[in-house]
């Protein structure tokens, strides 16, 4: 399997879901290994060293959060979580525990593939540590702290730049309110989401982003924000 795009571990107790995931992922030239239980999943993580883990939050033997915490003790392998709808708190908890992104069940395969690509790309990106980010006319120069939209320079305040840099560092990946608040402000402001709402509004305004049809910053209702990528649409 020299042309494999990488190994993906599926931890999911539903055989039907594992089946269609395996077929689709293998068709996209990923190598796939499966685990029905969380414990097996953790062991496979150690033995197979996957490049990405798809984790169902409702496992029969252990809590999804528990799985993430135990995996994160020794591994930084990207995790995409599968969760049932109407469980925002569960999603947020998983993201805060160290999951990289989530897909809500029921989901289309296209959506999952997009998430997988985004997460794999940004985990590679984190390693290469590029000095310039460029997508859809948005250009962020990290070394000079310069931002421009469609070639026009944009002046950002310190916090606005921090927020943008965070979103750009994990392009396409959802960041929870808590993660952003912790990073851009400090630990004491973790529940003051209205600061964040206002800051996002200001940043959108400066980037010329239409909140009704955002070009750059997408709101994930009840969870957080992500940077829009063309691949998502």
């Amino acid at each position, binding site marked *: 399997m020299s042309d494999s795009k990488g190994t993906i571990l599926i931890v999911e107790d539903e055989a039907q879901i594992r089946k269609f995931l395996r077929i689709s992922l293998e068709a996209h030239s990923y190598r796939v290994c499966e685990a029905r239980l969380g414990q097996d999943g953790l062991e496979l993580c150690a033995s197979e060293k996957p490049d990405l883990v798809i984790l169902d939050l409702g496992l029969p033997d252990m809590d999804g959060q528990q799985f993430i915490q135990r995996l994160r003790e020794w591994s930084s392998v990207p995790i995409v979580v599968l969760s049932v709808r*109407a469980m925002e708190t569960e999603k947020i908890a998983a993201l805060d525990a160290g999951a990289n992104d989530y897909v809500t069940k029921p989901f289309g395969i296209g959506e999952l593939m997009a998430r997988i690509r985004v997460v794999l790309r940004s985990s590679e990106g984190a390693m290469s540590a590029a000095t310039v980010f460029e997508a859809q006319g948005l250009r962020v120069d990290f070394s000079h702290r310069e931002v421009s939209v469609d070639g026009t320079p944009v002046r950002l305040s310190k916090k606005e730049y921090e927020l943008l840099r965070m979103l750009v560092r994990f392009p396409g990946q959802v960041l929870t309110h808590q993660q952003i608040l912790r990073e851009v402000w400090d630990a004491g402001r973790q529940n003051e989401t209205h600061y964040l709402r206002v800051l996002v509004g200001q940043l959108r305004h400066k980037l010329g982003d239409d909140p009704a049809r955002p070009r750059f910053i997408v*709101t994930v*209702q*009840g969870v957080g924000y992500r940077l829009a990528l063309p691949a998502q649409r």
Partner: protein
Amino acid sequence: MQRTRDIRNPLIPAVGATRAYAGAVGVVIATVGLAFVVDRLMPHASLSLLFLTGVLIVATRTGLGPSLLASVLSFLAFNFFFTSPYYTFEVTDEGDVATLVFFLLMAAISGNLAARMHREMAERHLSLQRISNLYEFSRRMSSAAGTEEVLDALADYLAQALNSGVEVLIVNDRGLPESRARAGQAMSAPQPDIEAAWSEEFRGPFALGACHFLKLVTSRQRMAMVVIHTDSMDAEQVRLARSLCDQATIALDRTQLVADLEQARLVSETEQLRSALLSSVSHDLRTPLASIIGSTSSVLEYGDSFSEENRKTLLETVLGEAQRLDRHIQNLLDMTRLGQGSLQLRRDWVDLNDIIASTADRMRDTLDDLSLDIDVAPEMPLLWVHGVLIEQALVNLLDNAIRFSPPGGRILIAARHCNDRVEIDLCDEGPGIPDSEREKIFDMFYTARDGDRGSLQGSGLGLAICRGMIVAHGGSITAHDGRNGRGTCMRIVLPVIRPGEGDTA
């Protein structure tokens, strides 16, 4: 629930006998005083008339005893002060003896008369009081809304009328009597006595231990039992107790009937709702499933002979129908949560722009050839709401608007801020909703008759959910005329509040 009440008995006049005798002595003393004055002005013989008047006054005011006392005292005083030899009790004149006899006779007759009059007056007063009490009691019985009220009133009136402690027990679920109401100085009767009395066929009243027992038996069952804490009851009291209990029995029968009817109404409403839910579930879950099963089996069986385009169309149908199924299940779940009152608001600061954007985003694929305009006024305040729920409400509204829009129609979402509230309008160019149905559409399982595009008929849950979610936020949702007289505008009004304000859920 048990109640104890202090009862003052209005039926027995509380005039002390000592006071009556003291009054008699007082009247005699006053008569003596008056007689000394009159003695100077009038002939001696008429003095006895003065004393007689005094005796009569005492007799009419009190009874036989005090009037006899007054007559003896009057005679002695008359004899002592006004007959010769003065200041002795000796009687020399025969006329004076006659006076004494007259005094005693007068006193006995008038005292008797007065006493009888008093007794009759007291009786009349008592029966009047009783009648008005009975009237008041039957008024309370007929107006009593529930069993509790009937039992409380019964205990109160019995305790008042019989001047003793009363306890009322009512049959519980296990068919045993259970203490419910008390009045007067009522302690609990011993349990064995209660049980023995309860199993007794006789309705009562009958005595057992230190109590009298009476049972309330309706046409259907032994309902309740009254325990009267008294050793003896006279015929009048028995009659009274029985009549009070009979009235209470009728009232109990009535309240029971009302409760049964209410229960029956509730059951039938629940039944209706359940059958509506069942038919909605079976219809709305089966319709997409029929398309899914049909399309997939077609592809599986004959897929090889289909053109690539047809295969794709069928598979797209499967996907679309599955998504519809998912939305319907979500609606059912939401409805259940709203219905159980277990919907928890997790309020947070939310930008209305974000909510509208993600609403539009979620429904973009269903828009087809419809155009969606969004017009949010600038300077919109952040909302302190549970964003996901508001989004769901908007999605349901937009889903309806899309369903009822004519091909190529326009849908508008407009939001503005006025004072302490935010108004969100969602307008379509569909057939509109007649005035008479504008409130009904928010009822569960109500679906508009006209204007739907055939199979796109909904479950009738969407708007009910919408209203539930908006009302949980202290807002309102109403249907209005569309713009330029076409279609419908659904208007959501949300109060602009800060954390800690108006949070009820």
